[in-house]
């Protein structure tokens, strides 16, 4: 293993599909999970990104609104500030572009941060995961694993 990995799992397991990222962690292969330090952060804060990208790479996980429930999307974290980007379900209080801007200003290396989201259908309190998300959890976990393994694989010069 060459890269220090941090997984920032956003969301709330008691709020329907908002718990998708947390549920996906349980589906990660053990060897992949062992490659990363996992933080369940609830909502993403600038300090989380600063700490997670200090000397390593980071994957931010969250359920998102605005895409097909169960579909998986991956993009650079910096891309989340774009107007047409999928909207993470867990961001409150500080707008996401401010979280990202603050994190960058505070020294986060966001070039090494990837966002992997899954479309949610229902964020109701106590509802559990929707069928669409439940059915896509393996696909979501495999995308997370792939991102870590692919990035971590030795490459020819």
């Amino acid at each position, binding site marked *: 293993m060459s890269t220090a990995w941090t997984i920032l799992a956003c969301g*709330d397991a*008691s709020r329907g599909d908002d718990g998708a990222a947390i549920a996906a962690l349980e589906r990660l292969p053990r060897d992949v999970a062992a490659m990363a330090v996992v933080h369940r952060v*609830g*909502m993403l*804060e*600038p*300090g989380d990104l600063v700490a997670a990208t200090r000397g390593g790479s980071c994957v931010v996980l969250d359920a998102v609104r605005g895409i097909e429930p169960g579909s998986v999307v991956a993009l650079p974290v910096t891309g989340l500030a774009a107007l047409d980007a999928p909207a993470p379900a867990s961001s*409150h*209080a*500080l*707008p996401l572009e*401010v979280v990202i*801007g*603050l994190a*960058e*200003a*505070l*020294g986060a290396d966001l070039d090494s941060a990837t966002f992997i989201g899954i479309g949610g259908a229902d964020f109701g*309190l106590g509802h559990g995961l929707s069928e669409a998300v439940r059915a896509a959890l393996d696909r979501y976990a495999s995308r997370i694993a792939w991102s870590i393994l692919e990035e971590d694989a030795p490459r020819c010069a």
Partner: protein
Amino acid sequence: MHAGDGVAAGGGADERVYHVEELTRVEGEGRLHLRVRDREVVEARLNIFEAPRYFERLVVGRTPDEVIDIVARICGICPIAYQLTAVHAFESAFGVTVDPPVRALRRLLYCGEWIESHALHVYLLHAPDFLGLPSAVELAKLDRGVVEQGLRLKRIGNDILAVVGGRPIHPVSLRVGGLYRAPRREELAKLRADLDEAVELAQATVRLVAGFEAPEFEARRLLVSLRHPDEYPMNEGRIVSSDGLDLAPQDWPLAFREEQVEGTSALHARTHAGEAYLLGPSARLELAGAALHPLAARALDDTGQAGELATNVFRSVLARAVELVQATAEARDLLDAYERPRVPSVPWRPAPGIAAWATEAPRGLLFHRYEVDEAGIVRRATIVPPTSQNQAAIEADLARFAPSVLDLPHAEATRRLEWLIRCYDPCISCAAHFLDLSLDRDGGPA
């Protein structure tokens, strides 16, 4: 960021229209309109065009515990205020008395909310104004340590909500009669060291903001807050004012009323005599400062600026910082004294009648009133948030302050007007952030 900043010709040669497309760093959607004639502000309106959210209708037909979950959704920054006001209203109406450890936990929750809300406002929303910066991002580039300090405080406040409330946003632990679950001592112990740090950070915040230069401005407003004989007001106390009002928290309607104002989707509140009044940290310190935690009282005294709080709203940032010391120090004391409740909640039976209460949200007095039937079902609801109560004072202060900026370059004038608005920490909603400001000037200097 002010897209569209600039001066445009209005209806005639002597009329100027100042237009600002976006004001960030307030919660919600609103528009400010100022009309100036011969250097006199003849109209100052903060129009809230945030879509009506119908919460008062949504809770009709619901049980008290359902109401508590629903009203939490009114605000992502101060959900505890809405929940606790409703809880106290129902408990007052149903004759429910909770055990002291439950009361202490609820107060700890409120401390957590004050910490995260005040830290957000002081550091990320308001401090850039005093430093002449457009945003907290620019502040972070200029002084990373200051923003890290604010974010750390905010995190500690959120952590309290997560441990006691079950999660940091829209917590789920509160119910009529107590809590669904009381944390074990070991769970709270994790917060103890953080609160030592938080107290120090809050004290540093007071020193920081005491050094901020504020515009000269004096407006003596009627101040209103809760006051409690034994503690700084949060969830209990009597409604008092700077002109001698003294009411039970249920009796807000005896002194105040809401009215519909054209062009805004929020109701305005005034006294029955039609007077605007000011709520929030400055009012609380002025009316209930005698109950401050000793550390908070000392922090305020050391600034030598206590005398300005009641008259210069630009000093509200200091009041908010002092309340950060209050909330962090009290949270630490509550943790040290914590005894897990024997049972987290007591049984209760509904009773028909009026359930009403007021608590102190971070932004000021929040009043709820519910009409409840024999089965405990809500039949009618009224929720009066602090921002709608402050709105008339904001407009009055804008009218008073505006003449002092008319000779400034347009961009600086509008920046100062927005700065004034942010002094009240308006929480128009926890939705989009958008305030559109226009200033019509006719008959005055170009």
